[in-house]
């Protein structure tokens, strides 16, 4: 994010022309020699995409995994081993998303200066070339490319090595350490998109894994689909590339997952095979019960296999390794996931006639209709904000700056309803929002089992200091249910405004959530504003209570907040316990 920015406008006036960047990207790609992937060569087709189309049209299902050890050599060795074991165990492995270290999103000269994280680093052209030729598996370069400051250099490397699917369009909201120039970052992304577009005739596809971006946070599947339509408009209509949209990790309910997959197929008017359907990563039990997880994985991939057999898209199957929530999977766990996928396909083939698709299709149509409305509202809204909707750079920079949750608040298509966190009833609630709503009930049940206090008469002002609304929603809802009179001021509230409301409402309690890494500053400012007005409600802060302190970045500042007299709340239960002690078992009011 550029800072300082021009206040009052979403976009700077001196942006380069997006279509000029696309042309520059095309010219750059023309100078890169074309290389055929080993995976395509061994199958007698021109490209990864061509083989996917052949599979799609002949009822063959393919498979996919994620993998990213620190070097290509380590990654290659594991891939070879997993593939070899498949010959004995009866599964195949077709595709791999190479999961890079986040530093790969930085230009090469900055990579050494940034902190190392987990994931693959491609150090040399030989690493890239090896990924295309060392194994008989189609590599995908998805993460930390499009949307990153390294978009052009990484795309050039991936195209030079013959990669067929290059992404990840959904990541144009990503931020990187040592980098704060979002205009250059997005300009490079658009140029890289032009490079991929130039290779369209050779079968190269511009990939998105949609839940790496805003879709993971949307509350309405109609929004998610409309957002995918927006990406198709940018990639296909404006840039001219072939576009694949993969999805799946945030879906738990098979009905939602398959209906959304079918809706994606409806907007895929050029019939580009998606890279894969990702396995569910949200349903695993936190206690590490891998047997239970294996059953969850089978169920998830079984329904995806049923859909691919009945409505073939060409997307590869992915079964989430059972240890996904706890650690980077071992080779054995990867093998197990492919065995599960293989069995799921077998069971799906034998039970396909049992599936009644009518409710799935009905839901697909609902998502589709809502998605079209969201897309139309989004485009009209962007125009009203002065964005040139024929310029890919303006579109991705503007939507990046608006942010996903704000976009859904502004352009969401459900009926207004303040009992939902974004102020409207989702047309088709995502599993994310279903979980959120259910979390409220879980917290309430837990509190009631412990003897929840009656907070009747307690006056509470709640707010979020930034745009995060989940925590605020749960706090307000739970405190209201416990009887408190809650004034929920919503997101992005300033300390002075919170204090003014505390004064007028004679609040007993001010509860603020914050996630933006400035918790101590916020706490101090809030207390200052309250003291200036001679009021002293109890102040509770929750969320991510950290801030950069001298000598320590992103330090936990809970102790400092407590010293100031602010109660730092790691959980809502702790907050309610604090309220009980302060206002119920102790005096009812501090005023």
């Amino acid at each position, binding site marked *: 994010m550029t800072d300082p920015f021009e206040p*009052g406008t979403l976009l700077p006036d001196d942006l380069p022309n997006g279509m000029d960047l696309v042309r520059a990207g095309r010219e750059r790609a023309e100078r890169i020699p074309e290389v055929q992937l080993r995976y395509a060569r061994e199958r007698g087709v021109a490209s990864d995409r061509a083989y996917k189309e052949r599979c799609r049209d002949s009822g063959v299902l393919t498979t996919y995994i994620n993998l990213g050890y620190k070097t290509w050599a380590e990654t290659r060795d594991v891939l070879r081993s997993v593939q070899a074991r498949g010959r004995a165990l009866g599964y195949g492995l077709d595709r791999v998303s190479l999961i890079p270290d986040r530093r790969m999103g930085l230009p090469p000269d900055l990579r050494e200066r940034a902190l190392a994280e987990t994931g693959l680093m491609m150090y040399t052209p030989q690493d890239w070339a090896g990924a295309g030729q060392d194994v008989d598996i189609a590599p995908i370069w998805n993460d930390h490319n499009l949307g990153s400051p390294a978009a052009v250099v990484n795309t050039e490397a991936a195209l030079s090595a013959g990669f067929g699917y290059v992404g990840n369009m959904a990541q144009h909201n990503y931020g990187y350490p040592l980098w704060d120039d979002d205009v250059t970052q997005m300009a490079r992304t658009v140029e890289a998109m032009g490079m991929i577009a130039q290779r369209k005739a050779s079968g190269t596809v511009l990939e998105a894994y949609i839940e790496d971006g805003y879709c993971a946070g949307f509350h309405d599947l109609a929004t998610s689909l409309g957002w995918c339509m927006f990406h198709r408009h940018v990639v296909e209509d404006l840039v001219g590339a072939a576009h694949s949209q993969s999805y799946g990790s945030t879906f738990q309910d098979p009905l939602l997952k398959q209906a959304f997959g079918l809706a994606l197929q409806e907007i895929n008017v050029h019939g580009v095979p998606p890279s894969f359907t990702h396995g569910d990563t949200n349903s695993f039990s936190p206690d590490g019960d891998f047997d239970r997880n294996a059953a969850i994985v089978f169920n998830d991939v079984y329904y995806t296999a049923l859909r691919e057999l009945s409505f073939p898209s060409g997307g590869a199957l992915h079964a989430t390794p059972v240890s996904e929530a706890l650690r980077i999977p071992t080779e054995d766990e990867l093998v197990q996931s492919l065995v599960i996928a293989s069995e799921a396909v077998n069971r799906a083939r034998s039970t396909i006639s049992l599936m009644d698709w009518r409710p799935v299709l009905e839901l697909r149509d609902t998502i589709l209709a809502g998605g079209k409305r969201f897309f139309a509202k989004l485009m009209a809204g962007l125009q009203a904000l002065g964005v040139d909707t024929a310029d890919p750079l303006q579109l991705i920079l503007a939507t990046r700056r608006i942010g996903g949750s704000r976009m859904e608040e*502004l352009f969401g298509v459900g009926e207004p309803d303040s009992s939902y966190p974004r102020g409207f009833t989702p047309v088709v609630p995502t599993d994310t929002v279903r979980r959120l709503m259910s979390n409220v009930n879980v917290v309430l049940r837990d509190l009631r089992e412990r003897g929840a206090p009656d907070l009747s008469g307690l006056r509470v002002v709640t707010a979020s200091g930034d745009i995060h609304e989940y925590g605020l929603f749960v706090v307000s809802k739970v405190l209201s249910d416990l009887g408190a*009179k809650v004034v929920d001021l919503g997101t992005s509230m300033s300390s002075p*405004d919170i204090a003014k409301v505390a004064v*007028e*409402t004679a609040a007993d309690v001010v509860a603020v959530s914050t996630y933006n890494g400035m918790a101590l500053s916020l706490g101090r400012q809030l207390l200052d504003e309250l003291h200036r*007005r001679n009021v002293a409600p109890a102040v509770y802060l929750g969320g991510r209570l950290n801030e950069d302190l001298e000598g320590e970045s992103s330090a936990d500042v809970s102790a400092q907040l407590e010293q100031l007299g602010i109660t730092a709340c790691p959980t809502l239960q702790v907050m309610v316990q604090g309220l009980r002690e302060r206002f119920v078992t102790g005096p009812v009011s501090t005023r």
Partner: protein
Amino acid sequence: MSGLGLGSERRVLDAPGGSRPGGADLISPDLLVDFGSTFTKLTAVAPGSGALVGSAQHRTTVESDLMDGFGAALRQLQAAGVAAAGAGTVLGCSSAGGGLRVAIIGLERDLTAEAAKQVALNSGGRIVTIVTRAASGSLVPQVARSAADLILLVGGTDGGDEAFVVEAARSLASGGVGPPVVFAGNTSARAQVAAALDGGRVVWRSAPNVLPEIGRVEVDGVQSVIREAFIEHVIKGKRLSASDRFRQIVALPTPDAVLEAVKLMAAGLASPAGPEGLAGAGEILVVDVGGATTDVYSCLSAGNAASSRSGSLVPAAPVARTVEADLGLRWSAESLVAAARELRLVTGAEADRLADAALQRVADPGLVPQTPDQAHDDLALARLAVVVAISRHAGRDRVVLTSAGADFRRTGRDVRGIRTVVLTGGVFRANAGSDLHGFLNGAFDHFDRRRELVPAQVRVIVDSRYILAAAGLLSARSPERARRLVLTTYGEFLRRTDD
């Protein structure tokens, strides 16, 4: 009201004499009176058809008795053939003697005091001072200095803070403050406030809480009590007339009456029973350009009003009035030109010429144009006043970019969708014969429409017959007759959509 291209429209009113259009021979017309600071205007309306049957005006006789000027204007009307004028219903509004001067005492400037300000302006008030808790130590002297006609005491949402209003009431009581008080604060504090004010023999009335909860402003209930206080206490207190009849006639402050007319026009004048139905002007802006101030009234659809000041703690009302005290054609002409220069509405030689014209008018506020050039300058200044006042009335959008996403902040009212602007005030009445087609053409072109929520292309309707206050007055008594008055006078122009 003359629509665009209606320069040949015959003027109804030829001050100082009376007129009688249409040759109607009516008995006991309804008589609507606007006691203005400069002129007392009479409008006679047929009780059945609601047609305008005559009008007259006379200088407001504030130095003797306001009823003297009323009597003189009435005689003009009678002489012009409206013989029974004054024998039927007579309703009046007044801005004479300084209008309704309101002092606001509120807890937080941006919350209860802001809500009170909105309601007071909508009730036709002039805000002469706002005292908040931050300055409550000097509450009594500040209110006394303001020479307010009425005090609006607010603070605390219902069930919220009580201490501020109770303390303020005690200060007013002990300080011997004269003007009547309207209490529109936390209802839980009403008994204590009542005890304090009664103990100090303060004249006061109780209204609903102006901000019963965060995000909700109570307009109508508070406005109604302000009107009662205006009639019962303010008008009497101003000693503008010794006559009981004056107090019987005056029902509203003049801006309040105009606001009622704005609502009438915007809400739609369609009659479900009659064929002469009129869709109304929909969302509408009315700009009243005076010698000292320019008032802007806007009426938005409920949805649009909600989007105005979105996220604000005090939401925008569908109908609102703002007063620009530095934009006038006489006393404040100099500051008007300065404001227009700052916005680059005028530059170079044109700006210098208008600055000279402004100086001349400030030196002689009674100036009546004697030459075509002077009349032209008056209209040029009026155009600046209209554009600056609308741009101030309109809200602003601001985008604040954060690492977590954009924060869209909107302040003020979103009047971008408004397509009809009604211009009223003496300057337009005096220039009713001029072709004002295109008066505002291009006026908003140079505004940054990404940030400033100003209108784009508007059609201009000029209230050359000056019936807005009359229609608003009549509307309070009989909406149907008010509807007919607007319909028969200006229906033709309101129907037009081709401008």
